[in-house]
């Protein structure tokens, strides 16, 4: 079994609040686990280990994405578990939770098992399927949550769709308790959203495009929080985008309710004005919002109201996006750029490096009850190396995802993942490429 | 044309017989107000003499320079014959053969043709004729307005360098020039103080009277703008 010795980096482990400056730490991986973690400056004997020099890099627990769309089964033309898993490790993600809006929908244990089976063979990252909350994502009849959980589903979500019927939502939340799983909601009042494609406000007014008001999200978040309170269920709000929703989530947590939340890299760094050029790679659901919303989201991420950064990686084929703005499917890529884009929050002081990693790794592990997010001795050896100051040009055509829909395409980004280790094996190295499969 | 300024080495290489390089922007007044008005008087006499009756005359000015000249001609013809010929303004820009495919299209000028040109003796009035292309464009434009019986050309100045077989019927003065010279006609246009109320005046006539006129040749080694 392989041994890897990582030295010379700055070691950040949010699970123990450890931040070891460069040169003082060394980490030994053996048999898929962290075998030793020296923080006092004592070197670990090499003894046949492959040396990974982390000079200039942060050494962190492998990142965990709780929200991605990997498109397999059924839409492999735009992404599949192999390409998605590869994009993930190139972005430093060792575990990815994938949403159920595939074809067929992951609402049956057979589909869950198929995904796990395929991922085992094809994906360098570990894939954790999220199963649908209602059959066919139709928002009418709940899924067999117990069976799905047994098959390997780690949470339930109709993401892509919303459960509009409050009675159905209530029952879904209630039932989720015997599966002891969180229910992830794409909170949006569809009628109020209407044909909206950009944030309703100055931008929708100037562009003459139908607007999606913040109220559409706020109303649904309010509803789902009340239902969570009513049912005692565990609610997780996906891709929060509005200040109003943030406010309600904060109040709910203060009141002791189990309400967690995630925010995407794009909602943390882009505002609705980015759509002014009608670039369909900026069309996303929920839409990019105003500066006020972005400021509230950043504060919420910093103070813990929002627990994790999740990419909502949503690949679409070029020909699907090269159409009229209102016809383009919403969504953008995220796995390969999340670190670079979100490092902006470290650079401007919103988050310290260790808090940044906590929200990309440790918290996600806790949220989904997964092993990971830690460098403690005995932890699973999922590790990523990040060069926080390395500049690189992002060209999605040369990236690992099959698709190219990213608003950062062609841009110079700062911060790059240079190596990723999954279960103790080096699966990605930025110079050597993807090494497994 | 190259626009490198004169330098010592250029002077040395020059053949002794060549003329000295002109200093920048040498400007000389070739025709002053008096001479221009005299020339117009003479041209008016020539028009009256050669015309087969003056009732069918129709002056058509090519803007901008032709306009004040045509006004003065109309004044002259009115005093000579008792009746004022109709005065039109015909912008030829849309008929040019050299509209570029880069940069910007030239700004258009006003066109006003108060009456029909059918069966008329149209006299195109231009300030400076050089290559003949503007007159050619003017004739094309005129044909779209109707069928004149005759078309004649008045030019205050013929500076040569014809590129098309265009003849000037009545010329104020022939002035030989270098192709790089610029010939500029200045006409002061003043608001009218009074009008004489003759029949046949067009509305624009009443707004403006023509003041000081001057024709200038500028030699500065830079290429010409526009066709002449």
């Amino acid at each position, binding site marked *: 079994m392989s041994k890897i010795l990582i030295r010379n980096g700055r070691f950040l482990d949010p699970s123990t609040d450890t931040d070891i400056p460069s040169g003082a730490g060394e980490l030994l991986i053996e048999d898929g686990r962290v075998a030793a973690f020296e923080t006092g400056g004592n070197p670990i004997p090499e003894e046949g280990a492959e040396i990974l020099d982390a000079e200039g890099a942060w050494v962190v627990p492998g990142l965990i994405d709780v929200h991605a769309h990997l498109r397999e089964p059924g839409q492999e033309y735009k992404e599949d578990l192999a390409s998605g898993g590869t994009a993930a490790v190139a972005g430093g993600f060792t575990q990815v939770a994938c949403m159920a809006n595939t074809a067929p929908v992951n609402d049956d244990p057979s589909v869950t098992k198929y995904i796990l089976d395929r991922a085992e063979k094809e994906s360098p990252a570990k894939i954790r399927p999220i199963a649908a909350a209602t059959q066919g994502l139709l928002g009418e009849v709940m899924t067999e949550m117990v069976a799905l959980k047994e098959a390997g589903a780690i949470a339930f979500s109709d993401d892509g769709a919303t459960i509009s019927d409050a009675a159905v939502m209530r029952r879904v939340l209630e039932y989720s308790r015997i599966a002891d799983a969180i229910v992830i909601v794409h909170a949006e009042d569809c009628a109020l959203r209407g044909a909206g494609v950009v944030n309703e406000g100055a931008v929708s007014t100037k562009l003459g495009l139908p607007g999606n008001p913040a109220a559409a999200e706020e109303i649904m978040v309010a509803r789902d929080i009340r239902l969570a309170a009513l049912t005692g269920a565990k609610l997780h709000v996906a891709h929060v985008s509005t200040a109003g929703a943030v406010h309600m989530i904060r109040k709910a947590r203060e009141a002791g309710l189990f309400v967690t939340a995630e925010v995407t890299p794009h909602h943390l760094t882009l505002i609705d004005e980015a759509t002014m050029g*009608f670039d369909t790679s900026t069309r996303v659901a929920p839409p990019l919002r105003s500066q006020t919303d972005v400021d509230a989201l950043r504060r919420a991420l910093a103070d813990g109201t929002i627990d994790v950064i999740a990419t909502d990686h949503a690949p679409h084929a070029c020909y699907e996006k090269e159409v009229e703005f209102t016809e383009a499917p919403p969504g953008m890529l995220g796995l390969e750029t999340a670190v670079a884009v979100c490092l902006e929050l470290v650079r401007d002081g919103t988050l310290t490096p260790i808090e940044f990693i906590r929200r990309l790794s440790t918290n996600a592990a806790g949220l989904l009850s997964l092993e990971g997010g830690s460098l403690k001795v005995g932890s699973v050896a999922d590790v990523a190396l990040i060069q926080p100051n390395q500049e690189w040009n992002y060209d999605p055509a040369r990236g690992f995802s099959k698709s190219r829909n990213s608003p950062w395409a062609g841009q110079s980004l700062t911060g790059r993942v240079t190596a990723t280790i999954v279960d103790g094996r080096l699966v990605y190295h930025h110079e050597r490429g993807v090494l497994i499969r | 044309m190259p626009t490198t300024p004169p330098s010592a080495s250029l002077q040395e290489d020059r053949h002794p017989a060549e003329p000295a390089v002109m200093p920048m922007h040498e400007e000389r007044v070739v025709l002053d107000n008096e001479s221009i008005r005299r020339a117009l008087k003479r041209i008016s006499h020539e028009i009256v003499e050669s015309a087969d009756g003056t009732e069918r005359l129709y002056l058509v000015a090519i803007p901008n320079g032709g306009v004040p000249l045509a006004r003065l001609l109309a004044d002259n013809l009115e005093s000579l014959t008792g009746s004022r010929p109709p005065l039109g303004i015909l912008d030829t820009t*849309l008929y040019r053969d050299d509209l570029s495919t880069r940069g910007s299209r030239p700004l258009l000028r006003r066109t006003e043709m108060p009456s029909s040109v059918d069966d008329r003796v149209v006299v195109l009035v231009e300030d400076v004729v050089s290559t003949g292309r503007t007159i050619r464009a003017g004739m094309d434009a005129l044909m779209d307005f109707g069928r004149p019986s005759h078309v004649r050309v008045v030019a205050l100045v013929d500076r040569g360098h014809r590129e098309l077989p265009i003849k000037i019927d009545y010329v104020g003065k022939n002035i030989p020039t270098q192709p790089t010279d610029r010939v500029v006609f200045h006409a002061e246009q003043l608001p009218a103080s009074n009008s004489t109320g003759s029949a046949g005046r067009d509305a624009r006539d009443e707004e403006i009277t023509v003041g000081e006129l001057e024709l200038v040749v500028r030699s500065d080694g830079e290429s010409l703008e526009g066709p002449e």
Partner: protein
Amino acid sequence: MIGRDILGIADLSREDIETILETAERMQEIGTREVKKVPTLRGRTVINLFFEPSTRTQTSFEIAGKRLAADVVNFSVSGSSVSKRETLLDTAKTLDAMDPDAVVVRHKVAGVPHRLAEVLKAPVINAGDGAHEHPSQALLDMLTVREQKGRIEGLTITIIGDIAHSRVARSNIYGFKKLGAEVRVAGPPTMLPADVEKSLGVKAYTNLAEAIEGADVVMALRIQMERLEGACFPSVREYAATFGLDRAKLRYAKEDAIVMHPGPVNRGVELSHELADDGPSVILDQVRNGVALRMALLYLVAGRGGH
């Protein structure tokens, strides 16, 4: 300006607008001639690419091109790129391969001309994209106002109707403001877009009398019945009563106020029968000016150079 796209009034400077209007004034004269043609764009190809049917605007551009002796080709396309399974990129590349000197585009979704302009070497003229902009309409409206009033600076213009869904409103707001007029908008609250006063820099009214008080120009927009009746306003009857213009309501405006409408008019809804035809209405001048204005645009930008 050769080769420059005309995608919206928002991208035009005041000088650009003045140049276009002055050129259009010269083009007006050609419409009075017997032979309504000049050879200026002879041999040039203008493609009308209309994804949304529009006899008026399409014909106006066609006549404009033909008066300049251009070869005008009309492409009427039905359906979205998704329904036709041809992406906008492919449509643009195909057109570009035909070497046009100008492409006039109308589409019911905002932003389509912009996408096409990225690929096409020829200048793209936006003939209306969704609710976003309709620059040639606004320009001909400005031309008409200048003709009627001698100026635009200092005038008060009130635009009435479904502002939220109107590209004519947006383009006119940008244009008239750039030329120094004060612009007001009026309509039921359901037809005023989000944050309208701050986003577009206008004063918004839900009361017609207040909106047209002292106005020099009153512009009524067409109501799209199919889409809106029942949703944005309860009935045509109520809309006509509250926001429809007739002689009586027009008295709130200045005595010499003019009435405009981009057409076609829903008689009895936006304008009463008499106002649609009578004195203060300059609707037919707008149409006439439309051809001159579109001739000016084609004259100024057509040509594949300078992209």
